[in-house]
């Protein structure tokens, strides 16, 4: 995820606002516990507003699609402000790069990127309250302190609530750099505790907080039908017949762009050609699709066949080196020539879809001079900039409201559905809610790219790794690096651990759109690398845990002070912890096995052990999964644990039987009956252990996913002796039950 207009706010950008300017009320939706009254309020900075009645409003800057940042980010502010969390109301911040910097949900970066900024925001607001009290009481500032939501002067016994002080505090100058001291971790009251999601009450009562729930006055409903063969555009359609149907207000062709869309989030203004059906309610629009007849122009459409792509990729991955050299360290040829033994394996992963539970929807109101949209986009800033470009309007003419999303996993990084909604709204001159069906969502995703890994290890007589080859094969429409398909990661294994390393890449042509899927690259890389390391341990008669510990090399931080680089001390700690928790090495009955996987991604060191049993029909039961992780400090223990439990479920779900297949450029799966998601009875028991440390917190949404597949596949091998080199494992004849 690229970084946008500002990495949070610099001190000089501190501007006071009399209110947060929340326009979301106009949508008639509640925004978490959004400013429910119009009681007088005072803002100390763009994040902190204190009502006279004691309520403390904290703005949540980044989109929340289930990763919990609408709770975690305000907690960071509240900690340094020393606010009583029970009095805090969370509101969704407007999309405004000048005030809130880069507002996006991706790369598990929300907490990591905003950690310093938000602590500073809380601390400076607290300092303004303290200074204001000191002035009023004629006491030295140094004698004052805070308790949650109040300022105290212990020598005189005086105290005042934040609410009593805030009006005068707004007159204080903003403290300069270095004038505030951030809390020591030992003094935290809130961070690291279990805090219930700020949206929990709204969620359990079914309140209208999701993108699909947005309703604005005079709004009509639309569906948008695109060519199943991706990139095809409509020539003609039976529009008059559609318009005669009950409830149908309009039907028209959007000429749009021919050819598959690009995942370039910053630049793409692609609008796929299609047929818009506008109706007085969602059902009428969906029902009318049954009567729709379209003649498609498929001259620029994809002709992909996933089996052909796979055959080409597997053939390529069988070669030890590929078309493009990515890294060549030491003398890998020599290492393999002189090796005592060589272990090889080719690993394969398929296209997968995001299948977030809320299908894409967007409410848009576009006129000739202005556009207003309500969207659950993970990149609302790019929604704004690409709309401006597409409609040739100044950025100020585009208002984007962030709305909670029903799952993201990378699917809401792109904004094509936002553009579609705006195009339809402008054409009909009314606000419109565009609703994708589940079938649309599955047919027009930016899929996780398939990736293939031709791995080779050269070993010494003692079973030590002396050489490493990885030929990564992924797909691409133009021969360039695929979008988040698979690639080389710097500052990580096997760099500088294995002496002779050769990494290369080959691209197989494909036009099917690909994009970021939870833990991009790592989600497939971990499966191949960590399964292969187990293969090596097994082939050389070494205990997997001991081999993995040794393979990490000496104690070091690959790029000191860069949290995104591997730290082998932290890595070994989580491997030790998780194997201890799972009683690694214990005797198990026949058909049962433990498997281990470790992966470092998104600044998180995570190790997992799975316990599975496999029967004669290759039915796999995942009994338990143990997770040990070092994410540094934990912001919200309940939220981080929830993300980890969910990542394990997601990992099992994806490895079991999730696969997108393509024929003649069209996706074959249409709905959950052909693309199964894990259900409660299949869900394993999950144990999460966070090895907390003083390091700054890193994100919890992604790093627990990559180790799941190798841990389970290694456990399957230990249970039944069959090595799985293909995801989903259903393609190797296994079934998760």
């Amino acid at each position: 995820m690229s970084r946008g207009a500002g990495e949070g706010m610099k001190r000089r950008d501190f501007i006071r606002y009399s209110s947060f300017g929340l326009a979301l009320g106009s949508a008639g939706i509640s925004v978490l516990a959004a400013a429910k009254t119009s009681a007088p309020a005072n803002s100390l900075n763009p994040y902190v507003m204190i009502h006279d009645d004691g309520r403390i409003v904290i703005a949540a800057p980044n989109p929340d699609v289930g990763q919990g940042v609408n709770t975690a980010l305000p907690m960071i502010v509240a900690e340094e402000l020393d606010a009583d969390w029970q009095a805090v109301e969370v509101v969704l911040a407007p999309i405004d790069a000048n005030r809130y910097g880069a507002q996006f949900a991706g790369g598990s970066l929300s907490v990591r990127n905003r950690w310093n900024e938000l602590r500073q925001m809380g601390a400076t607001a607290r300092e303004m309250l303290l200074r204001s009290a000191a002035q009023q009481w004629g006491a030295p500032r140094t004698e004052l302190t805070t308790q949650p939501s109040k300022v105290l002067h212990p020598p005189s016994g005086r105290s005042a609530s934040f609410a009593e002080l805030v009006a005068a505090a707004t007159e204080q100058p903003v403290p300069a750099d270095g004038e505030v001291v951030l809390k020591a971790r030992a003094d935290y009251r809130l961070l690291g505790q279990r805090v219930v999601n700020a949206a929990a009450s709204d969620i359990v009562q079914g309140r209208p907080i999701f993108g699909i729930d947005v309703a604005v006055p005079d709004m009509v409903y639309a569906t948008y039908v695109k060519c199943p063969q991706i990139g095809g555009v409509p020539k003609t359609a039976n529009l008059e017949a559609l318009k005669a149907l009950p409830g149908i207000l309009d039907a028209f062709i959007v000429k749009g762009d021919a050819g598959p869309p690009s995942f370039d989030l910053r630049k793409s203004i692609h609008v796929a050609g299609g047929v818009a059906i506008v109706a007085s309610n969602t059902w009428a629009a969906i029902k009318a699709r049954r009567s729709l007849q379209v003649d498609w122009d498929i001259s620029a459409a994809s002709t992909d066949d996933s089996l052909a792509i796979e055959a080409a990729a597997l053939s390529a991955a069988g070669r030890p080196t590929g078309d493009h050299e990515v890294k060549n360290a030491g003398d890998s040829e020599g290492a393999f020539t002189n090796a005592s033994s060589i272990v090889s394996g080719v690993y394969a992963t398929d296209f997968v879809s995001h299948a977030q539970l809320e299908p894409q929807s967007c409410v848009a109101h576009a006129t000739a001079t202005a556009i207003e949209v309500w969207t659950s986009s993970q990149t609302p800033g790019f929604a704004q900039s690409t709309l401006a470009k597409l409609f040739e309007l100044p950025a100020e003419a585009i208002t984007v409201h962030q709305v909670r999303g029903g799952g993201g996993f990378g699917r809401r990084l792109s904004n094509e559905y936002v553009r579609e909604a705006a195009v339809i709204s402008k054409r009909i001159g009314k606000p419109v809610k565009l609703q994708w069906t589940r079938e649309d969502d599955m047919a027009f995703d930016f899929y996780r790219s398939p990736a293939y890994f031709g791995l080779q290890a050269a070993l010494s007589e003692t079973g030590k790794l002396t050489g490493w080859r990885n030929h990564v094969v992924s797909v691409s429409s133009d021969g360039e690096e695929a979008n988040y398909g698979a690639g080389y990661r710097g500052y990580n294994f096997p760099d500088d651990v294995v002496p002779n390393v050769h990494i290369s890449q080959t691209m197989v042509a494909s036009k099917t759109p690909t994009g970021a899927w939870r833990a991009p690259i790592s989600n497939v890389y971990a499966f191949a690398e960590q399964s292969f390391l187990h293969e090596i341990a097994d082939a050389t008669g070494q205990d997997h845990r001991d081999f993995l510990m040794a393979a990490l090399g000496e104690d070091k931080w690959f790029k000191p002070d860069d949290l995104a680089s591997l730290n082998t001390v932290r890595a070994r700690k989580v491997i030790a912890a998780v194997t201890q928790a799972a009683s690694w090495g214990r005797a198990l009955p026949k058909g049962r096995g433990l498997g281990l996987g470790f992966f470092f991604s998104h600044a998180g060191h995570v190790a997992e052990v799975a316990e599975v049993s496999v029967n004669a029909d290759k039915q796999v039961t995942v009994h338990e999964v143990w997770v040990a992780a070092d994410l540094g400090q934990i912001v919200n223990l309940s939220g981080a644990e929830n993300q980890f439990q969910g990542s394990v479920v997601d990992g099992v779900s994806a490895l079991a039987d999730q696969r997108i297949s393509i024929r003649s450029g069209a996706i074959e799966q249409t709905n959950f009956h052909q693309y199964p998601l894990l259900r409660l009875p299949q869900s394993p028991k999950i144990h999460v252990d966070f090895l907390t440390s003083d390091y700054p917190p890193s994100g919890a949404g992604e790093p627990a996913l990559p180790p799941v597949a190798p841990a389970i596949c290694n456990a399957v091998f230990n249970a039944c002796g069959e090595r799985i080199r293909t995801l989903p494992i259903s393609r190797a004849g296994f079934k998760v039950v």
Partner: protein
Amino acid sequence: MQLSVNGKAHELNDADPDMPLLWALRDLLGLVGAKYGCGVAQCGACTVWLDGAPVRSCQLPLAAISGREVTTIEGLGGDALHPVQEAWIAHDVAQCGYCQAGQIMSAAALLQRNPNPSSEDIEGAMAGNICRCGTYSRIVAAINTASKQFQGLSFYEVGQEATVSASDGEVSV
């Protein structure tokens, strides 16, 4: 067509009899707690009660339910929270939250007919509700907590499941 939702009668005279209950609730009555996830009764996000039994409203045409009583998440607890809703908050179940109204309607229906469900009972009753975020272990914990109240026992607080180890030194390498 007549429809009673959460105890309130509605006349939907102009509505398409084919229209699934889900879209009538969402677009005609403004009750958006029930969610559209798949449209083919695969995911359970649209779960509501029909005469007290959980049903998938995305597959239930209005013509089939005229005159019957519908309960949605908005009407589940009346003026207060239902014990299942309270348990969902106490266990901090939700991630994105999109499926949770459907999960809660299925769970509350289970406890209504079986206040002390076994693990197998819970698995059977909840297998039709997908949670894409993977909150299943918390869903089970919340149902077990709510069942205490259904049995007249006192409500207990959220269980502490994850462990947090102190920093350096505690784990031997």
